[in-house]
């Protein structure tokens, strides 16, 4: 029931805000902040009641929803989704605080849209029924479309449409895949269901896996976004209002990577392992390409948008290593990116509120006028650049170690032996992202904050207001905490990751025996030879 309460909170919030009398939006905003903080507090209950030693789903609830099609309202939470749920509720007050100056009309509707968006994101993180997941996945689109289309600037209609169409085109094959799984699984076992926990006990044959994985991966890769499916992102970010950008970068993109971790990889382990060398190659291309393109942007927001492409490449790379270190690092990096890039968008939003431009050449020497803001901006930037002591480093380090130590031996026989060195090369190439990150981020900071004041308009800028500072402070606190003492986070993520990897290796072994025919239960396929699969799990672990 806890999860239902967390899902209900923003929904109720949306209702309350919708019923507020129409005014200049002050009430709606204040209500939004208060309610989102309340939602965050409610969501903390999962943290306090979370059993650190339990790697399975917790707070599970399954209620029949559409019985005719075996659809359940099945939700649950494990170490992988725990922090993402908390990130979503944690960022929401920050997001609403950042809307005070950037959103000035139809404020009430804006807050309602944000709350509905929050329902969609939270639902997608906790859904354990593929149909339910798909519903939440699509629910998110509408409010985000409105946020960009109504409250954005510049070519907002174009950006909003591009965002929606891109995502929809990607998610349709996934829907087809889900329905295919539903039908085949039902035909093979007689149990027609969309329930993730049931479906995940079966494996599909190898060629079916290849197609299903591709269908799911397309939807998720667009959301991440992975190069070359990223071109919606710079447009969406640039035209979205500050709160939209923060939530987009902070949470929405993580749904793509989360989808890979929760659905695409565990459901289709053989396909995941077969595609992994290519996908991790693409992830590395994303890291380098995103960083290089970011470097030559003349629009600050676009620069940060491309930096997201680069950072999420790291997240993808870590998970594709499919070992404890890499996968945990990948999940950790999702949180880090939410904080640091969220913070960068806040900073650029604060400058936009003052100058109504994102163009780098309009700024310069701003630090002299805005020292407090400059310091906060600098911290977000260093977190993003992966400076040790701040959060970004811990994630990047785990991802790179995970990738570097990964041995693709369990696909030996299928992939040429050169792939054994592939992961090392990938880790080495990805590590150049560390250099490139410094290049574009310091370039950004120098153009905005350093140098003499050339543009007279910058000579009168106000420093950060108390409200702006308070939007930054929670982010900064967690940047230090997660960088200096990541244990509370890691010890909750790791057990679930370990279990997931053992199951993944088992399912992979099962898939090797399953070339043709309808889906079969893993236990039937692996049967007595679990020792073999365990040995595989050991070998593939590191």
């Amino acid at each position: 029931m806890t999860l239902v309460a967390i899902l209900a909170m923003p929904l109720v919030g949306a209702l309350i805000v919708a019923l507020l009398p129409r005014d200049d939006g002050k009430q709606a905003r204040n209500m939004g902040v208060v309610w989102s903080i309340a939602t965050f507090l409610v969501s903390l209950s999962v943290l306090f009641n979370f059993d650190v030693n339990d790697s399975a789903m917790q707070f599970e609830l399954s209620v029949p929803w559409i019985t005719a099609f075996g659809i359940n309202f099945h939700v649950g939470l494990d170490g992988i989704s725990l922090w993402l749920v908390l990130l979503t509720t944690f960022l929401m007050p920050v997001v609403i605080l950042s809307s005070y100056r950037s959103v000035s009309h139809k404020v009430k509707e804006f807050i309602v849209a944000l709350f509905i968006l929050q329902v969609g994101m939270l639902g997608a993180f906790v859904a354990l029924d593929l149909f339910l997941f798909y519903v939440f996945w699509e629910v998110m689109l509408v409010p985000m479309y409105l946020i960009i289309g109504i409250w954005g600037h510049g070519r907002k209609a174009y950006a909003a449409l591009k965002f929606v169409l891109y995502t929809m085109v990607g998610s349709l094959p996934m829907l087809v895949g889900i329905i295919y799984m539903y039908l085949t699984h039902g035909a093979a076992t007689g149990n027609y269901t969309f329930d993730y926990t049931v479906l995940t006990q079966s494996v599909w044959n190898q060629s079916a896996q290849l197609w299903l994985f591709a269908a799911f991966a397309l939807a998720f890769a667009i959301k991440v976004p992975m190069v070359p499916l990223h071109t919606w992102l710079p447009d969406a970010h640039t035209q979205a209002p500050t709160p939209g950008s923060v939530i987009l970068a902070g949470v929405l993109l993580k749904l793509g990577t989360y989808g890979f971790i929760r659905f695409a990889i565990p459901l289709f382990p053989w396909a995941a392992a077969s595609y992994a060398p290519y996908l991790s190659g693409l992830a590395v291309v994303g890291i380098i390409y995103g960083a290089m393109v970011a470097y030559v942007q003349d629009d600050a927001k676009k620069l940060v948008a491309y930096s997201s492409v680069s950072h999420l490449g790291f997240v993808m790379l870590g998970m594709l290593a499919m070992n404890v270190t890499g996968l945990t690092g990948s999940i950790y990096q999702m949180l880090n990116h939410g904080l640091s890039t969220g913070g960068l968008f806040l900073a650029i939003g604060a400058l936009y509120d003052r100058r109504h431009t994102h163009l780098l050449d309009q700024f310069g020497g701003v630090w002299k006028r805005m020292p407090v803001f400059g310091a906060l901006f600098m911290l977000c930037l260093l977190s993003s650049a992966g400076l040790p002591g701040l959060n970004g480093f811990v994630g990047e380090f785990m991802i790179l170690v995970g990738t570097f130590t990964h041995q693709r031996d369990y696909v030996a026989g299928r992939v040429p032996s050169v792939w054994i060195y592939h992961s090392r090369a990938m880790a080495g190439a990805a590590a150049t992202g560390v250099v490139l990150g410094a290049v574009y981020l310091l370039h950004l900071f120098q153009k905005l904050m350093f140098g003499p004041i050339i543009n007279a308009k910058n000579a009168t800028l106000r420093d950060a207001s108390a409200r702006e500072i308070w939007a930054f402070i929670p982010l900064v606190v967690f940047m230090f905490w997660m960088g200096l003492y990541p244990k509370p986070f890691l010890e909750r993520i790791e057990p679930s990751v370990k279990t997931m990897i053992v199951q993944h290796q088992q399912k992979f072994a099962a898939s090797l025996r399953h070339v043709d025919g309808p889906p079969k239960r893993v236990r039937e396929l692996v049967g007595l030879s679990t020792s073999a699969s365990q040995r595989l799990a050991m070998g593939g672990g590191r």
Partner: protein
Amino acid sequence: MASFPLYWIPLLPFLGAAFNLLFGRKFPRRAVHLVSCGVVFGALLVSMVAVFRELYPRWVEAGHGGTLEPIVNRVYSWISVGDIDIGLNFLLDPLSAVMILVITGIGFLIHLYSTGYMSHDTDYARFFGYLNLFTGAMLVLVLGDSLPVMFVGWEGVGLCSYLLIGFWYDKSGTERYGDANATAGKKAFIVNRIGDLAFIIGMFLLFTHAGTLNFTELADKADALMTKFSPLGLGFYVTVAGAAGLMLFIGATGKSAQIPLYVWLPDAMAGPTPVSALIHAATMVTAGVYMVVRLNFLYVLTPAVMATIAIVGAATALIAALIGFAQNDIKKVLAYSTVSQLGYMFLAAGVGAFSAALFHVFTHAFFKACLFLGSGAVIHALAGEQDMRRMGGLAKKLPIVRWTMLLSTLAIAGIVPFAGFFSKDEILWSVAIAQNGTLAPWLLKSLYVTGLAAALGTAFYMFRLYFMTFSGECRADAETLAKFHPPTSRMTIPLIVLAAGAVTTGFLGLPHVVAKHNIFHEWLSPVLAQGQRVLAQVGSRIEPAAAGADPLAQANHHLEWGLMGLSLLIALIGIAIATRFYKGGVRQTVRDLVAKMPAVHRLVYDKFRVDELYGWIVIKPFRVLCWIFAKVADGIIDGLVIVAGQLTLFVGRSLRGIADGSLQRYVAVMAVGLVLVFLAVSQPPDDFEIDPGETVEVGQVVRFEAEQSTRELRYRWDFDGDGKWDSPPQQPADKRTGEEDPRNFARDRAAVFRYAKAGKYAVRLEVRDVRWKSRATEERKVVVNEKKGIKSSRRQAAGPSVADRRFDNSRTDGARR
């Protein structure tokens, strides 16, 4: 065991930094510098207690050659996941002891000096906040007990360096555009990060093959370090120690400004002079040397990398000294001098004289800090003037500065008995007697000659600096002289203390022909014993033989005395040339010389145009590539998406005619559609296959298999065309309801039959869809012939498939591994 709380040593400066950066602006300057200097002094006191009260007794107890139990302070587990377990632990052994005393001691003096030097600056609190932050990070670097913790400090000092080089971010250095200082900071950070990239790859290599990154544990993994592997499967084999050692050394070339990554250090002089003294002379830049000495047990295993280090060090020492000849900016000269001296340190480390390398770190910290602070006093007095051509004659105006700088200059030039003589002589001696199987003897000899040449250069350009600054007539303009103000006692006291260090510290490391005990060497011996222990374990496996000193030459006292005299003579020659050319200002002989070969002078003055070279081969291509990616590649990718969208739109528009609002047509189309859909879903697929074919023999096993479907289907078969269902066994219909028994249909879509008699048969399959309750039948003919022989084309229906074999393959692979 409750261990000494070493964490206070870095924590105190961090607390000071937090105070000054968060609240410093709201407090008076007095509070800012009291806190700032106070915390560093506190750290110095804690360090002294730790070293003299905790470590020293252990060192005495261990005795000469014994094993020393270092002080380890475990604070908490930092990153613990999977196989990684990195603790935030601090390690105090004789090596880190030297470093923390230098950092806190010299750091404190420089903090004190800064209160005078920065007294006019508006951003007082920010400066001291950064300075404290740097001190804390540097202490983490040297106290960390594993590579990742060291890396925290490593990157932390890089950040502070960036912030402090660009401290005056809204100003530009001389003759450059608006944000040159910020650009210099950025350059330092990025060049360092390039080194760091190699550093982390080195870490990963060590972790992958040795399973740990802790220094103490690594030192016990000699076997793992000697493991050979083929990098990226390229076909050649290297040892882990070699590959990781080389990578980490590349990291060190970034931090310690060696070829090819030295280019940031001269630009770093854009920062305030105390910063140059603390970060870019005494402490941060020596981090690379510290790292190599810390990992001495790794480097002794890899003569090839040691040779590389020695060559890079020697080349850097010489080239930087050459560039120093022609610079006119007093800080630039000192910057190149630092690069050159760091080259010496690496040269020493590269020939296995780790103790000599660290000894030079130690003495250099004193005299170079003194030189920088002295130059800062000059710049301060001349209201920001840094060009030596507009100095001169300051000996009388700034007597304390002049004398302290003279002593330090003598020290760096290598004049006995000042500190630099002993440390530099020990390095040259170690190079002279070095052995390394990977280097040809003539190369080893030329390393020594290079070292001597750099020593000559050092003496020359340092006295050039001294004469141009202090001797002759003052060349500053009247305006500057009007603003002239002498340094306060806060600035002169550190100078005097450092100069005293420059005179005396050399006696800690007397050569063994002079004194029985080389105190510095003995103090470090427990750390260097790690290397000897590792060599004893696996030294025989090193090919070619491990690098080290030639024992025969080492014992030759005449040779040592002779070489000592030679290096002193060389230094004196350098001074003599400088006196001849520059005493009393730039003499006519120099001008004539320059006029004779303007191109050479220009090339040296332009630092051999290495910056321009990097610009052409690295920076410009990188920018162009970025631009191509952003404008061309991204445009093409996005363009394809747009075209796909337009195409959809086009198709939609073309089909728009169909939706014209004619209701009758909509209904008709809908009806047709519905029927088609209904037919499609209701009619189950009923095709089937016969194995081995439609012509079979009597008694042969014939396998019938219905078409695969995603729908839930049931099957029954009539094989002989007699109208009765043969498979599965039929049950009678329910008597009351008349419903057919569901057992009459099989789940399995395959069935097997043997024909007993020859003839033609009609095979009938009936398929039933469980969901839609629909049925379909299909009939095919089979010809059964008489048996011809024993020939059997029987194929196993479900034998071990390809997948199983593959599985077994991978299993054996795993086992082999």
